[in-house]
């Protein structure tokens, strides 16, 4: 099938970015908004078309989804080792394209309302387009290096967007933090890539992930410290993924990233960029699974599980709704990682893989919805904090409904999207390891609880007096909410197990009733608790909090991770490494060089007395010179 038009999907946003970026000053805001949306609309349509073509028309050949690749050499390292540029079409990339384009389009539409009247409106849309372009590039990458390249670009656009309000110090700090933390993760990623490239001789995904390929077959060729170098490479690469997907302990940037405009949080820090890590692992899944008995995959599983639990706990105590959502995102990402970690490869064993991709898909929808909803709330009350909210259902019905749908979805209430994907994950976990399964269930409960905590807190709870009464957001903002809500409703019914699977063959997914029941039950318990605590204004919550005491304090301070990192950065690196080096440079290295010069001058001052001006001293010098020389050359230095 002819796929060349796919190039348009990334390049239209790029073109938009260039236009908006270069003529930033010239273009009128209104225009730029339309340009952005239009550009995205094209990409979206194309990606839908592609998805349709791929999944239902041309994609399948004798039961297996084919991989279509078109690439050219971008740069040579050695004759054999080179970076390619191109696009790779297979189930997950197509799926991701749909996700990215959809959410991105929604956010673009939404932003036209949300960002109205902001100077730098154009800049905002430019950044959005840049991000979208990079994200498409990342999704379509054909090899490790290409994915790394766009990985970095995505990071930068995230930096730019978080720091969008660049006069706000907190925003700057957050942006820097996000970039540097991910950069640190990418440092691992990069080394991983190099190791991979050096020992396998290729970066190309197809060669790497081919289960019968040389790479996977002789993974054991070289080993380092008891593990195969390939495993090391995978672990390092996962480090990169963990950085982007805010896995523990590289998660600290994500909450702060909420300093950015809410649409950005919805697009980048909920739906698309943060799942890049998951996507990366999924991309290399065969390696993770097959190399060294899936050692690396174990790590992925446990990191994912722990992160999801950790984040869920923190989420309970946060009072900034966006931060709650951020931690919820982290927790959900942990879920996906976990799912990948517990997945198998062949046929139905690959349910975890499928589930994680499924969850990625659904989560993108409802989490974007949640954020956009939160955005419209914030837009209305001009605050991020629960204490300033309450009883908003009267004022903003649409937001209320859509938010509720999303909350239910994430809580895993059937028949909403979240239910299906979450159920599959739990199934996978259950089949693989009880321990992880229980964590998953517990997290499901927590999720339901904190999500409804904020839901009730915002829309029910105390009737706050607002100085100017909040009102429903303009249609440009509610429209995307409705669309996403609709998607959230239906997304669960997409037959993922046929479409997106580890071995690309597809299998018969069936609902495991008992597990589903448990999951839903736990979810409901959470919701009910939240109902009790927050439906009406009461002090139950505070009493519980005080009951937990220290633990509560720790949690609300996110277990002091920021402080630890801050200490590392400021005290250790800046004060204890950089400062001494700068000092050393000035004092010693430079000092030596100057010392040589000064000594020379000093000597020349010291010896000036030799030139005494007395002709007789000169004569003495003369004669003494003669005598000494004569003595030396006649008696001592003779051979």
């Amino acid at each position, binding site marked *: 099938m002819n796929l060349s038009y796919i190039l348009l999907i990334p390049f239209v946003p790029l073109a938009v970015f260039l236009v908006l970026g270069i003529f930033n000053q010239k273009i009128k805001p209104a225009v730029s908004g339309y340009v952005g949306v239009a550009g995205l609309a094209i990409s979206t349509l194309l990606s839908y078309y592609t998805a349709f073509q791929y999944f239902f028309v041309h994609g399948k050949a004798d039961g297996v989804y084919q991989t279509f690749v078109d690439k050219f050499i971008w740069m040579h390292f050695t004759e054999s080792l080179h970076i390619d540029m191109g696009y790779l079409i297979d189930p997950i990339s197509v799926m991701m394209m749909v996700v990215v384009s959809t959410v991105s389009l929604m956010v673009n539409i939404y932003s036209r309302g949300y960002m109205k009247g902001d100077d730098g409106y154009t800049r905002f849309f430019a950044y959005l387009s840049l991000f979208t372009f990079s994200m498409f590039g990342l999704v379509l990458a054909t090899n490790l290096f290409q994915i790394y390249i766009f990985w970095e670009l995505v990071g930068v656009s995230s930096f730019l967007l978080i720091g969008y309000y660049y006069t706000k110090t907190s925003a700057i700090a957050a942006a820097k933090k996000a970039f540097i933390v991910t950069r640190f993760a990418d440092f691992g990623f990069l080394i991983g890539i190099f190791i991979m490239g050096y020992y396998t001789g290729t970066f190309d995904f197809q060669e790497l992930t081919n289960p019968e390929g040389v790479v996977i077959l002789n993974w054991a060729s070289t080993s380092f410290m008891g593990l195969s170098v390939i495993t090391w490479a995978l672990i390092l690469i996962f480090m990169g993924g963990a950085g982007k997907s805010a896995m523990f302990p590289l998660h600290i940037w994500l909450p702060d990233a909420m300093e950015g405009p809410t649409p950005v949080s919805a697009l980048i820090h909920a739906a698309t960029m943060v799942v890049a890590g998951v996507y990366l692992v999924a991309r290399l899944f065969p390696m993770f699974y097959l190399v060294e008995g899936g050692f690396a995959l174990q790590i992925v599983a446990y990191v994912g599980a722990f992160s999801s639990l950790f984040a869920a706990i923190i989420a309970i105590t946060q009072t900034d709704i966006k931060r709650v959502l951020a931690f919820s995102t982290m927790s959900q990402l942990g879920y996906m990682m976990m799912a990948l970690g517990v997945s198998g490869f062949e046929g139905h064993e690959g349910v975890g893989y499928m589930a994680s991709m499924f969850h990625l898909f659904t989560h993108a929808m409802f989490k974007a919805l949640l954020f956009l909803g939160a955005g419209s709330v914030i837009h209305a009350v001009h605050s991020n904090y629960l204490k300033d909210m309450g009883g908003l259902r009267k004022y903003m019905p649409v937001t209320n409904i859509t938010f509720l749908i999303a909350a239910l979805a994430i809580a895993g209430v059937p028949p909403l999207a979240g239910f299906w994907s979450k159920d599959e994950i739990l199934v996978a976990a259950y089949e693989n390891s009880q321990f992880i399964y229980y964590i998953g269930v517990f997290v499901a409960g927590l999720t339901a609880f904190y999500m409804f905590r904020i839901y009730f807190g915002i829309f029910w709870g105390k009737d706050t007096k607002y100085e100017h009464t909040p009102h429903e957001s303009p249609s440009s903002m509610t429209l995307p909410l409705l669309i996403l809500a609709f998607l959230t409703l239906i997304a669960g019914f997409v037959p993922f197990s046929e479409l997106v699977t580890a071995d690309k063959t597809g299998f018969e997914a069936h609902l495991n009733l008992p597990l589903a029941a448990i999951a839903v039950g736990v979810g409901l318990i959470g919701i009910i608790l939240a109902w009790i605590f927050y439906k009406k204004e009461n002090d139950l919550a505070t009493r519980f909090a005080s009951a937990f005491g220290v633990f509560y304090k720790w949690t609300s301070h996110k277990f002091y991770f920021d402080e630890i990192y801050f200490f590392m950065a400021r005290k250790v690196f800046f004060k204890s490494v950089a400062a001494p080096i700068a000092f050393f440079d000035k004092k010693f290295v430079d000092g030596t060089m100057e010392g040589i010069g000064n000594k020379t001058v000093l000597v020349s001052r010291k010896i000036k007395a030799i030139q005494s001006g*007395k002709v007789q001293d000169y004569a003495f010098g003369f004669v003494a010179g003669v005598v000494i020389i004569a003595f030396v050359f006649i008696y001592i230095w003779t051979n």
Partner: protein
Amino acid sequence: MIPGVSITEILTLTSILFFIGIYGFITRKNLISILISVELILNASVVNFVIINKYLFPDVLQGVVYSIFIIAVAAAETALAVAIIINLYRQVSSVEVKETEVMKY
């Protein structure tokens, strides 16, 4: 050829003469006496040339001729030196060597 006096003794004498000259040059306070010391040094070599010629290579008179030239040149040298010293005397009305230490370092 002085009977009973070997070349070594005379050469020793000239060497002593030479170093007396050096010593005088370095120690005397008066420019004129420094000039005299110079004369001593030169004369040491003059004697040397003559003696060496006479004792070692008597057949050719190189040394003797040389010594005559030295004497002539020495005379010129002294004359010039005295002229300059007088010039200095005009300005500082002294011929002490310590008057010539303005420029130093």
